[in-house]
Every structure is written in structure tokens, then in C-alpha cells.
């Protein structure tokens, strides 16, 4: 979904919305000192660039025409000073612009990341991780680069154009006006080409991402391709894609290959005009040699800044879409927010006031709860459930019946659209989100680990735990055996997302993580796919340990987990249709009975087989 969204964005050619750019540029203006230095240095450099031809003019008119070397040493010193100044200026502006670029991207990312920590799950449900990554990494990078360097280029180019125009007008206004007639067509053509080129580049990027996708699919599906004997067909489809890529890339290249020569040609018309009219004036003595040389230098160089300005404008336009996406991410409203009163008492997610927190016992009650996902059908209607502190609840039922919704409501990842969820007898909206979530443990169907060592991961919920406590937790869920087998024991790096460990091992670590955090309320989304038997046994045992002494909700798939629960709830169509212990439910001969006889029977067979 995310990539489809991206592709649409590529083709958008939107009008430049200045308010968005104003907001982005404000990030740069936070750094007043650096931006001021940058602006001043840039203007000075442009002025120096304008002075060089004037220096040559002076040299020609004074030394060459005057046939003297008197004053040449002074001239040399002055010239070298200019060079030194310019060299230093260039260093300064590159470094300052780089600094601003990095500061701006740092700030936007910081703000974006904080926002992402606050956004509710309804946002995450409809936004792919890849999409967010693209916004936070490449879009922000591109925008801050543009913001910093476009200030540089735009200022330099504008100062240069204005300065050169002024210098020429002062030197000889008639010749200047004549030469300057080249600028308007130059600007128009530059703008036209820049826009066109950007359009083609976008198309190239789009095709390129399709090629990457095709490679990805070709490699991931290689086995299936083989069994279906699809090699030839896939290859011919791929060839079409690369053929298209070649065609589009060449078109983009040809377009930019045409651009520079045309700009240069227009520039040379200026030089030609200077040489023609200026040369004439030199002959009749109304123009000095030096001035002619200065004119020639100026005309040879001024196509550069003009096309640069065109380039920046075109770029602004093409980056409009990225700018909007980034700003809208930062501006996304949070759906679940604590009231000001709650924040005043309990603190927010970043600065909690733990001293005011009541201890959670773990009693959970759903009171006439209705819930619907945004723009979707109602998942729960007038749902009521009372769970005593310490009780274990197993939820069974088909996909989409509402099991995950119930769990998400308990965690306050979502809030009820109607009704209340009470924790220890009080609506949880009267306390802060962090108050609840700090006492929550959650093990996902596909366990998620963070890169870092095994010990870091176990310590995730309680950073101050001692090594001994970490080990005790690991031992409790039988994770220590495999941990000690790792190369560096507890200090083994798990790799990004825990890639170096098996699913079962990751699961055990996430149980140890819960044990160490010792939450009052525990949520387990049990895995459907089975893992190797030995680990499976360990996990079963670990689950039993984790469930002790806390209120637990389990989206259950395994026979043993379900059987051991205090209460089993069969959820169908957002309602509790059956409720009771394993035996009680079997006696009902209802849905649970059917489920047990079909699904779980197979599991029994599996157990023997392994």
C-alpha cells in the first residue's frame, strides 16, 4: 500500500505552497548565527566574483595600455588577498551550509520521532513502516539539503546577477542593455528544461523502484518460479521493464544533454554581441580595452547563475510533495491524548510524575464498550467483561472476531468509542497512558527484539535491573541454557530485529523480558506456527510461569495454554458467545467443542510426531 502511495506522489506536480516552505525554512532560521554568516559570506563571495573581471580591466587599462609596471606589486598583493578571502569564504560557506543542513535534518527528525512515539495505533494500522521510513530518512534528508544549499545558491546567484548587471550598466549602459537582452530567453528556457528534466528523472526513479521490486520478487520467489517453470516468462517480463528503463533514462539524459549546450549557446550570443558592439566601440575609441575584456568575462559567466536560479525554482516545485508529506507527519493529530488535568497529575509520556502514580492491582472491567475502527464497521457492541486481578483469560475465535480489539482496548492502544474500560474500578482515561502501559507486559505473535545484547533486550522494560536479576528472569523461562551457548553469553549481540536468533529463542527472551518487568497486566498474542518441539516445551512452561500473579489476556492458539486458563471466552462477531473453563465449554457442545475436536486434535498428532 505504501509503495502504491509513493508512486502516486512521484507523478504529482503540485503548485508551490509557500506556507509549507516558510515553515521548513524556519528550521534553518533557528540557527541565527550560522544563517547570518552564510548569507553575508555568500553575498561577499558573489561580489568578489564580480570584482575579478574589474581587476583584469584595471590591469589592462593601467599596465598594458599605459605600458608600465608601476603599481603592479600592489595590484598583485590586492589580487592575492582577494583569492585568500575567497578561499576562506568558500570554506566557511560550505561548512556553514553543511552545518545548517545537518541541524535542520536533526531537528525535523527529532520532532518527527517524538511525534511517532505519541501517535496512536490507528495511525500505525494504516501507515506502513516503509512509508514512514521514507519520510523520516530520505525526504527529510532531501529537504534539509535543499533548504541549506538553496539559500547558498539562490543568494549567490541573485547577488551575482544583480551585481553584474549593475557593474555593466556603470561601465557602459548602452552595451549593457544590449547584452542583457539575452537573459529573459535564457531564464525561460532554463525553467522549461529544468522542469522537464525533473519530470523525466522522476519517471526514471519510478521505473527504477519497479526494477528493484522485480529483483526482490524474482529472488524471493525463485523456488516457486522453478517449480512452476516460470523462468522464461519472468525473464521476458523483466526485460520489458529494463527496456523501459533504458528508454526513459536515455530520454532524460538526452534532455539534459540538450539543455546545457542551448544555455551555453544563448550565453555566447551575449558574448558575441559584446565582442561585436564593444569591439566597434573600442575601434572608435569610446570603450577601453579593459572594459571590453570585462564585458566578455561577464557575458561568458552569467548563464551560470541564471540557470541556477531556474534550477532551484524547479527543484522547489518538485520537492513540494515531500515537503507536504513531512509537514503533515509532524502535524498529524494524536488520537489518544491525556487530558491536561491528567498530565498535570501524572505527567506525560516523556516526563512522568511517578510519585503520583497509584499502584495497579490488575482488575479490568469493560462497561458497555462499543468500538469501531475509523470509518469501519463496529467490531464490539455493548461489550461487558469483568476480570479479577490475577485471573487468566483465554480468548478464542476466528480471525476478525474481535479478539485483538479487546486486547488493544485493554492496553489502551485504542480507546472505546462508547462505554468505559475500568482499571481497578476507575476509568483508565482518568490516568495517564504511561501509568497503565508502565504496568503492562506484552508478547507478540512474532516476537520483536531490538538490536543490542541479549541482556539489553531482557532489561528492556526495567533498565536498572541488576545482572543477577536478568539472569534469574532468563533462568525462570528456561532461556539461560541457550543464552549461555551463544558466543558471548548474555552479551551476545542479537542483530537487527534479532535475526541471529531463532523464533523460539526470541520468544523465550521476550518472556524473560516480561518476567523482569513484572507487570500487573500481561497480554500474550500466541504464535500460530509451531516451533521445534524442544523449544515448544520450554515455551509452554515459560508461559505458565509468566501467567502467575498477574491479570492475563491471551489470544490463544495452543491447547495447553487454553486448558490452563481460568476462563475461556469464545468471541464471535464482537460478542462473548461462550464463557467458562475448558470442561464447562466442552460440555456445551458448541463452537469450542468443534474447535477442540478439529484443530486441537491435529496438534496432539503433531506432538507425537516430533
Amino acid at each position: 500500500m505504501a509503495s502504491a502511495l509513493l508512486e502516486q506522489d512521484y507523478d504529482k506536480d503540485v503548485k508551490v505552497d509557500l506556507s509549507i516552505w516558510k515553515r521548513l525554512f524556519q528550521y534553518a532560521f533557528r540557527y541565527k548565527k550560522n544563517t547570518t554568516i552564510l548569507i553575508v559570506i555568500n553575498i561577499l563571495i558573489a561580489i568578489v566574483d564580480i570584482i575579478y573581471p574589474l581587476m583584469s580591466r584595471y590591469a589592462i587599462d593601467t599596465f598594458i595600455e599605459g605600458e608600465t609596471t608601476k603599481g603592479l606589486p600592489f595590484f598583485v598583493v590586492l589580487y592575492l588577498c582577494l583569492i585568500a578571502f575567497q578561499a576562506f569564504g568558500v570554506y566557511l560557506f560550505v561548512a556553514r551550509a553543511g552545518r545548517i543542513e545537518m541541524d535542520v535534518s536533526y531537528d525535523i527528525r527529532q520532532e518527527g520521532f517524538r511525534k511517532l512515539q505519541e501517535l496512536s495505533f490507528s495511525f500505525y494500522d494504516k501507515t506502513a513502516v516503509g512509508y514512514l521510513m521514507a519520510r523520516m530518512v530520505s525526504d527529510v534528508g532531501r529537504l534539509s539539503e535543499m533548504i541549506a544549499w538553496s539559500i547558498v545558491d539562490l543568494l549567490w546567484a541573485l547577488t551575482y546577477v544583480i551585481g553584474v548587471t549593475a557593474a555593466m550598466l556603470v561601465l557602459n549602459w548602452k552595451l549593457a542593455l544590449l547584452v542583457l537582452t539575452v537573459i529573459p530567453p535564457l531564464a525561460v528556457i532554463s525553467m522549461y528544461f529544468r522542469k522537464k528534466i525533473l519530470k523525466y528523472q522522476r519517471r526514471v526513479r519510478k521505473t527504477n523502484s519497479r526494477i528493484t521490486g522485480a529483483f526482490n520478487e524474482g529472488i524471493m520467489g525463485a523456488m516457486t518460479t522453478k517449480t512452476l517453470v516460470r523462468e522464461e516468462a519472468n525473464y521476458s517480463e523483466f526485460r520489458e521493464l529494463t527496456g523501459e528503463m533504458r528508454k526513459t533514462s536515455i530520454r532524460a539524459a538526452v534532455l539534459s544533454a540538450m539543455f546545457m549546450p542551448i544555455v551555453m549557446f544563448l550565453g555566447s550570443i551575449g558574448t558575441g554581441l559584446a565582442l561585436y558592439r564593444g569591439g566597434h566601440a573600442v575601434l572608435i575609441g569610446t570603450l577601453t580595452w579593459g572594459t571590453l575584456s570585462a564585458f566578455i568575462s561577464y557575458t561568458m559567466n552569467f548563464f551560470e547563475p541564471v540557470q541556477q536560479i531556474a534550477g532551484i525554482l524547479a527543484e522547489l516545485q518538485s520537492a513540494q510533495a515531500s515537503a507536504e508529506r513531512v509537514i503533515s507527519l509532524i502535524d498529524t493529530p494524536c488520537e489518544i491524548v491525556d487530558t491536561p488535568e491528567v498530565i498535570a497529575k501524572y505527567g506525560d509520556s516523556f516526563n512522568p510524575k511517578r510519585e503520583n502514580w497509584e499502584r495497579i492491582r490488575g482488575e479490568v472491567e469493560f462497561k458497555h464498550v462499543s468500538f469501531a475502527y475509523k470509518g469501519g464497521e463496529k467490531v464490539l457492541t455493548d461489550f461487558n467483561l469483568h476480570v479479577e486481578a490475577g485471573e487468566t483469560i483465554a480468548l478464542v475465535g476466528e480471525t476478525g472476531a474481535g479478539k485483538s480489539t479487546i486486547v488493544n482496548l485493554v492496553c489502551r492502544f485504542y480507546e472505546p468509542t462508547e462505554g468505559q474500560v475500568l482499571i481497578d474500578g476507575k476509568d483508565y482515561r482518568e490516568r495517564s497512558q504511561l501509568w497503565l502501559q508502565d504496568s503492562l507486559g506484552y508478547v507478540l505473535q512474532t516476537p520483536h527484539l531490538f538490536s543490542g545484547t541479549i541482556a539489553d533486550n531482557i532489561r528492556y522494560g526495567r533498565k536498572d535491573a541488576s545482572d543477577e536479576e536478568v539472569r534469574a528472569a532468563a533462568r525462570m523461562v528456561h532461556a539461560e541454557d541457550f543464552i549461555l551457548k551463544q558466543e558471548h553469553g548474555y552479551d551476545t549481540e542479537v542483530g537487527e530485529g534479532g535475526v541471529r536468533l531463532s523464533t523460539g529463542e526470541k520468544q523465550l527472551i521476550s518472556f524473560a523480558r516480561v518476567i523482569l518487568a513484572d507487570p500487573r497486566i500481561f497480554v500474550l498474542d500466541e504464535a500460530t506456527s509451531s516451533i521445534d518441539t524442544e523449544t515448544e516445551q520450554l515455551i509452554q512452561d515459560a508461559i505458565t510461569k509468566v501467567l502467575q500473579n498477574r491479570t492475563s489476556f491471551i489470544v490463544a492458539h495452543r491447547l495447553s495454554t487454553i486448558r490452563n486458563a481460568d476462563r475461556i471466552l469464545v468471541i464471535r462477531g464482537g460478542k462473548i458467545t461462550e464463557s467458562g473453563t475448558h470442561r464447562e465449554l466442552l460440555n456445551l457442545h458448541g463452537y469450542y467443542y468443534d474447535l477442540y475436536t478439529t484443530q486441537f486434535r491435529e496438534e496432539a498428532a503433531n506432538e507425537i510426531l516430533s
Partner: protein
Amino acid sequence: METGKKHTKTKMNWKLVARALKGSTRYLVLGAVFLLVAVVAAYCGPLVTSFTVDYVLGEEASSLPAAVMRWIDSWGGRDFLRGNIWICALALIGCTAVNGFATYLRRRYVALASEGVAMTLRNTLYSHLENVPYDYHKHVSTGDLVQRCTSDVETVRRFISVQLLEIVRTVAMVAVACYIMFSIEVRMALVSMVLLPILCVSSFVYFRRVRRQFTLSDEAEGKLSATLQENLAGVRVVRAFGQQRDEVDKFTVCNADFRDKTFKLTQMMGIYWGASDAVGYTQIALTLFVGIAFVVRGELTLGNLMMFTSYVGMLTWPVRQLGRVLADLGKATVSLGRLDEILSVPEEEEPGRAEKPEIRGRVQFKDVCFGYDTYDDVLHEISFTAEPGQTIAILGSTGSGKTSLVQLLQRLYLCTAGAIYIDGTNINDIEHGHLRRNIGIVLQEPFLYSRTIMDNIRLVRPEAAEEEVHAAARVAAVHDVIESFEQGYDTVVGERGVTLSGGQKQRVAIARMLMQNAPILIFDDSMSAVDTETDAAIRAALKKRREHTTTFIISHRITTLCEADNILVLEHGRLVQQGTHAELLAQDGLYRRIAEIQNALEDELRTEGGEA
């Protein structure tokens, strides 16, 4: 990526270069030709200015070659031109026009060449990756391969389109400039060129050294992305443990690290640009100062001085870039080496006579052994026969060799000993495409391509009518499910579309396989995510559909197993039991143990029900 770095070949494989350049060489040559034309035209511009200043406007002799001068004299020489200065202006514009047109052609041909090479490389890689043996894909990382096929190809493409001719261009420019300048005034020429080698060498050395900082900045960015990715993917865990604040702290560290490392890099760049600007401008200034002295002493004309300064101005930039290009030169070699590594893996070969016999479905395993390495047998002396139309069920624990057994039949691996015969022909003698087309297989975790469900099902027979697809989907009990989707059969699935559940995927894959109309079918635990009732319905529909199909089913479900004509029980790669349901029940063994447990379960239900 890490593994890639370790094994990267550093020696250039010229055969690969030749293969990649095939069909593009002439464009490169044409590009080089027009490049030279452009360089010459570019140098004519200042020459025209110089000629105008010295000869037309001034009173000096021209430094143009005698032949050109004679031609100009025949037009009326200085006096004529003085009356018509526009001719000089036009000549100047003409030079730029020729330069511009040649530059355009050069870039066009270079684009043709570089895009051609990129296309050839991409196609070669893709086709190669489709045709390497099955085993290869089990041991490589998708990310690494995709990375190589995209970024490394891009590095090579960029090298050809930007760097290769840049080197030629700079060398040509320096050569032409040398020729003109030395022919006019040797001392001036020396003065004008003296700092250029320093510029080139210093930028070369600089970019070599700064590369480390580039890597540091790249790595910091990678870390930043990884941290972000991890946070987003694990957002539930973060919230459930209330770790937002620590996450922000963690991210801040990465964010600041990337900022500081990149800033250090730009600072180094700033020093470089500043310093090299200083050298470049000093070179121009030197030319100017010495030139002025020469002009004043009458040893150089004003026009030539202007020409020298423009030439020097034209040279400093490319010479500076040359150092950078040379410093980057190694990158393309490394990239090509990484691609070469992929391409040097041998493609799947025909071990035998590659015949295409008619296949009816008699399958015979004769003392088949198989092991991924020679010491450890996955399968050991397996022998059995399946007649056309029979259903063979395979039962065994994880790692008992079930999957290997059916993969051998499709010849995704070769037997290490023994042989498999289909209708009496050793499968090693059957052409692999023909063999696989006649054996339909559904994997436990099937892969769907990212296209519509319709296209996925008729993948092997794109010309099939929609009704046929619907019929196959009905047999696989997935037609109603598909119809319930908003876009029905036009729903796009896979990476870029809707995610189907495991059971739905399996059923779509079954429908896809049915379109193959193969005489031999294999279900590799491919209904594990489908509930038992649907499973039974699918099997019943299959039976009706084709009577003569030989079917292999890997399953744990006794209900599935008991219907088979022959049940194979595998343990640690050995065929420990085989027979029908009744026969196996009579023997003491794994099969009976499972059946007993299932019965026990039923008893338990009965008693629990009775307690009520």
C-alpha cells in the same frame, strides 16, 4: 552485505566487461569522437576572441596558423573585418554552437552506451538468478542480492556515463591546451600550467583520504535508519513497556551521531573546496601577472593574454575533478567484482539426455539416497512405487526428509545415489522444464507474485479463460473467498498488495497448481493452514477432477492419511513403514501410536461430555 564484503573479488573479470559492453562499444567510440570535436570547438572560442582583439581591433600580428590567415586575407583581411566585426562575433557563436552540438551528441551516445550496459547487466543478472540451482537461494540473503543487482549496477552505469569520458575529456583538454599554448609562447605556457598537476594530485590524495569519513557518515545514516525501523516495527513493544522516553534518547544518540559525522565530512569538503579554489585562482592570477609583465615588455599580445587566462580558467575545474574521478575509479571495479561473484555461480545444468517423454504418472524410487553434504544422509535408500492414479501419503517428523523426498522428484536436487524413474525413464534424462511442468507442487508457505489473483492463478497458462480459473478456484475452495474481496479476482496480492492469510495463500496456490493440469501432484503440507473440513472438501473435489493423477500428500492429519493408497512413514531419512491405513494399524509403529492418540482424544471428549 557483510558476507559480500568478505568474498568480494578484486580482480577485474574482463570477460564480464566484454559481455556487458556488447552492443554498446560503438556508442562509446562515437561518444569519444564527439567529445574530441567538442573540446576542439571549445578551445576555438578564446582563439577567436584573441584574434579579434589582436588582429582585428589591435595592430598585432595574428597567432593563427598561416593557412587560416591566407584564407582570411583572401576575404580582405584586417580592413574587411574591421568593417564587419559581426563576422568575428558570429565565428565566436559558431564555435559555441559546434561545441554545444558535439557535447549534446557525446552525452547522447554515452547515455546510449551506459544505459545499454546497465540493461545488459540487469538482464544477465536476473536471468542468471532465475536459473541457478534451487539450493543457491536457500543460502543467500535476498537483501544482499537485491542490493548488488541495484546499487552495484548503478555504480557501473555511473562510471561509464560520467567518469569514463570525463577522464578522456580532461586528458584531451589538457593536450589541446598544451598544444595551443606551447605553440604561442613556451614560457607563458609553462607558467600557466605549473599548478595544475598539484591540483590534480592533491584532489586525488584528498578523495582517497576522505573516503573513510564518507563511510563513517554512511554507516551512521544506516544506524539511524535501523534504529528508526526497529522502533516503528516494534511500536507495540515500546508502548507496552512504556519506553517512549528511552527510545527518544536512543534515537537522539544516532541522530546526533549522524549529524556530527556528516558535518565533519562537509567541513572536510569545505577545506578542500576552499583550498583548491585558492590553488585554481592563484594559477589564473599567476598567468595574469606574468602575462601583464610580458605584454608590457611587448613579448605577448593582449589577445593572447586573454586567451591564456580563459584557457587556464577552463582547465582548473576538470583537472580538479580528474583527481576525484581517479580516486573513485576503484569503486566500479569493486562493484563489477561483486556482480561477477553472483554470475560465476554455475547455472542449473541437464545431467542427462534432456528428453521430453509423455508422462503418465508412474513414479518409482529405487534405493534413493540424498544428502546436502556427503557425510550426512537426509534420505537413505528409499524405494517405493506409485502407480498412475494412486495417492501416496508421507508421514514423518520435522527433519525426517519428507520435503527432500518430493523435491528430489521435481529434480530441485539430484539424488546422491539410486535413481527415480517416471514411466520407466530416469528423471535425470528428462528435460527439467518438461519434468516440472508435469509435476505440480504446492509448498507449505507458497509464494504469490505481486499481481492480481487472476494472474496469479493462471500464471502457468496466461491464455486460460476466466471460467477455467474460477473452476480451479472452486476446487481449491477459495472462489467464494476471492469473490468476497472488493475487487474480486482483480485484487492485487503479494508485496505490493493485499496480504492474504496463510490458508488463503495455500488455497490460491492450489488453484494455481491445478491450472497446470499435471499428471503428478505434490502437496507439501500445503493444507496445514486450512481447516480440516475445507481440507476434506478440497481433497474430494480433487479426486473427482482427475482420476489418473498420481498424488503425493505430506500431512499430519490422520483423516488425510487414511484415505491414501500407500502411506510412507519416514524416520530420520529412512522409510520405516509403508502400507495402507489398515496395514499400518496392524503394525506396531509411529502410525499406530498417532492413531491411538487420536482415539484417546475422542475417548476423552466422550467422558468429559458424559460428566456433565
